[in-house]
């Protein structure tokens, strides 16, 4: 059976990539990533004066002789190699399954599995979590080679989960995620960023995700033009109730003015979120835009051409690793 969450990107291509994060983000114990702090790797970091307690084997005798007669010894320091933790959060609101012709959730799950694959190649930890998901849904944690399989299971569970329906306003459930942020190096949020954060829970999560020099990367998916163009020229239409917004059974007219108003409201909404979320670690690049007329069959091409070049992917992954 074909797995719809299987990313169309070449696995060979992903296997050549490694996580490439800022060297200042939090990390854990020994790993593969070079850090800016002193450690036990083979990567030279700096010279400094010998201090009591330093390993005598770290003394650079040649440099100490060049230092002269003051008698101070010079020791070499090396950078540390530590393991990263990548937190991948998917927005699973029922509205993410729209548009029906090319669901945003599919794109998000593809991106999630690609990022997880990159993290797995360097043995990093990955945490999979959802916002607006079902109640009592616990995040899934995996490390190294176990990550791809965990990512596949997580994506399938999300895609095959019962659809609660579009009508109700989704409830953000972020408590379980907040507890896992402590060892995280970077947090990636995959969403269309159209949700209502009336309780402020998501904003608090975003702010917490940037503490301790952590990074919060937002991957925004923009389907406004594609969805609007699909029906706006066809005459009056009835709108379904979505996330608490009801339009009744009366057909409505749509024109450019409505679209302009929509863009304005969405921009205001995003600006409001940016303002609330803005901390030192927020990276919210331009969105991935759905082409007008996109169908399910064309999603793979769109993903292949947009995701590897997206600012988010380039900000996280690099060939050869670091």
């Amino acid at each position: 059976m074909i797995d719809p969450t299987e990313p169309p990107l070449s696995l060979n291509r992903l296997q050549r990539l490694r996580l490439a994060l800022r060297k200042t983000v939090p990390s854990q114990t020994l790993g593969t990533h070079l850090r800016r702090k002193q450690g036990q790797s083979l990567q030279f970091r700096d010279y400094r004066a010998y201090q009591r307690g330093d390993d005598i084997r770290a003394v650079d005798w040649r440099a100490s002789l060049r230092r002269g007669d003051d008698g101070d010894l010079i020791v070499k320091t090396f950078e540390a190699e530590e393991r990263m933790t990548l937190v991948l959060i998917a927005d699973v609101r029922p509205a993410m399954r729209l548009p029906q012709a090319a669901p945003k959730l599919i794109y998000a799950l593809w991106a999630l599995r690609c990022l997880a694959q990159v993290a797995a190649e360097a043995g990093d930890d990955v945490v999979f979590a959802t916002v607006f998901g079902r109640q009592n849904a616990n995040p899934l944690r995996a490390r190294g080679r176990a990550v791809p399989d965990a990512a596949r299971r997580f994506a399938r569970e999300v895609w095959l989960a019962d659809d609660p329906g579009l009508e109700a306003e989704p409830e953000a459930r972020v408590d379980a995620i907040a507890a896992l942020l402590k060892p995280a190096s970077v947090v990636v949020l995959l969403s269309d960023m159209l949700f209502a954060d009336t309780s402020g829970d998501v904003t608090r999560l975003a702010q917490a995700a940037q503490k301790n020099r952590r990074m919060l990367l937002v991957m925004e998916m923009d389907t406004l033009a594609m969805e609007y163009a699909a029906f706006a020229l066809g005459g009056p239409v009835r709108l379904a109730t979505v996330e608490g917004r009801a339009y009744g059974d009366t057909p409505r007219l749509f024109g450019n003015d409505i679209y302009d108003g929509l863009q304005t409201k969405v921009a205001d909404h995003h600006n409001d979120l940016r303002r609330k979320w803005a901390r030192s670690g927020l990276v919210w690049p331009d969105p991935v835009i759905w082409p007008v007329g996109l169908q399910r069959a064309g999603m793979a091409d769109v993903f292949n051409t947009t995701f590897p070049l997206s600012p988010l992917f380039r900000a996280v992954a690099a060939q050869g690793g670091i």
Partner: protein
Amino acid sequence: MLALLLASVAGAGLVAWHMQRRAPPPVKLSFARLLPEPPVSETTERRFALTVPLGSVAFWLRMLALLAALGVLMVDMNRRGAVGDQGIGLRIVLDVTHSMGLPQDRVTRLDAARIVAEAALVQASASGQSVCTELVLAGANAGAPGAVSGLSDAAVRPEGGDVAALVAAAAGPVADCPLTHVLVVTDARKPALDWAPDGPVFLWHQIGESVANTGPRSVSFTPPGLGSGRAKIDLVVAGFGDVPAPVVWLDGPGGRIPVTLQPSPDRDQVWLGNATPNGAGHYVAVLEAGGAYGGDDRLAFVLPEVEGLAVDWRLAGLAAPRGVQGSGRDGLLVVDLADVGPEEWARPLLAVYPGWPNGGQVGRIGAFVQDPALLAAINLDAFELNAPRTVSGPLPPGFTPVLTDNAGGVYIARRSNPLGLIVPAPLRDGGEVEALSLTLFFTALADLAGRGTMLPAMEWRDAQGQVIEGAALESDTARALDAAPPLSLISPRATPAQDVPVWPLLALIALVALMAERALMLWRGVRHAV
């Protein structure tokens, strides 16, 4: 009419269903929460605006399914099935009547027939084509088709049969094996058949040499009556082939009774015999040297106890004849016409009226009915010369004239149910008229009191006493032996087409149309969702 009405209603309903124009489903937008309030459309569309569905593939598929389903319920037609592949469907009809047990070249006719059947099976198998076979055993009646493995277990049955059973077995209904060949193996001759020219190849293989045989065919019993004082047994014996004059005796109560046989004056090879039985009881007509077939040499029958003639004799001037015993109210009433009581008209009766002497009148016979039982013994010329008076007054209800004068007066009248005759009373004057009157009176009495000839229940037995049902059907063992058809005729042939009902095809069409409609709608749904 009902079918037409039902079909019309169903078809109209389907068309009406398709002529609706349904509102499209509401559009789902992921950004609907942030959408500015769009203006309401002023134009309204009718929910049930009519559209012509002729361009809808789903409509035609549903219409096809509907019509086919109605056809399943209402059409009672058959279609000519396709002609099958080249192959052999062989039905073997094996005669297992009693004569098949006759010896034939150190075996029996049945053994010889079995060899022929096995040879036919080998011939069919040698064709290399698909072969299906079945075996039908035919005795007095045709059996049901079975497997040819039953050939070895086939045994002669103690019963006779005729070719009608064989033909019925050959033309019996076809079950799982489409027939291309029918082989009948029997010792009987092939009858004239109206076999369908496009039906299976029909082969009649006759076995058994022609051998002479004799057998009793039937027996009849005549109880004692007024005309004959003793009971009588009549026996018919038939011979087939070159046979000597048969010798028959009866074994029964009182021992062996010889039967006198005379050749039939009008039929060859048939002898008629009679004997006087010794009362009621079980009898066996035994044929001595009865020829090749022994199953018909003994004919057993039972003679019933016969009571004497019961007559209620009330004629004062004439005594009842010997052999007649008096009875109460049940027997034949012999009485003067004037003395018949009102309730006695319902009894069988012989009523006499005073016709003689006629007082010198000269009568002329008028219209009369041919009634040989009554008038054969009467010379009508002598009767006319000495004609009696006619019945005075009207005839009693139920009586019709038999003999009248030219003036319409009735000399003799008869009633059929219950039996009744009105004749002139016998005259005892010693003259010429006395003989005439007594002859007429006693002829009428014998006619009413006669009990005819009885056919007793009979059965044939062989020398061991085993009952052979209908053995007389097996007696003709001297029939000509026809040449056997070559078994090479059992060769591959296209199995014939058969009439098959149409409704399964219509049901299949309905099912396929429904599945196609569902698949179409599913495909459209998936495409819409994608």
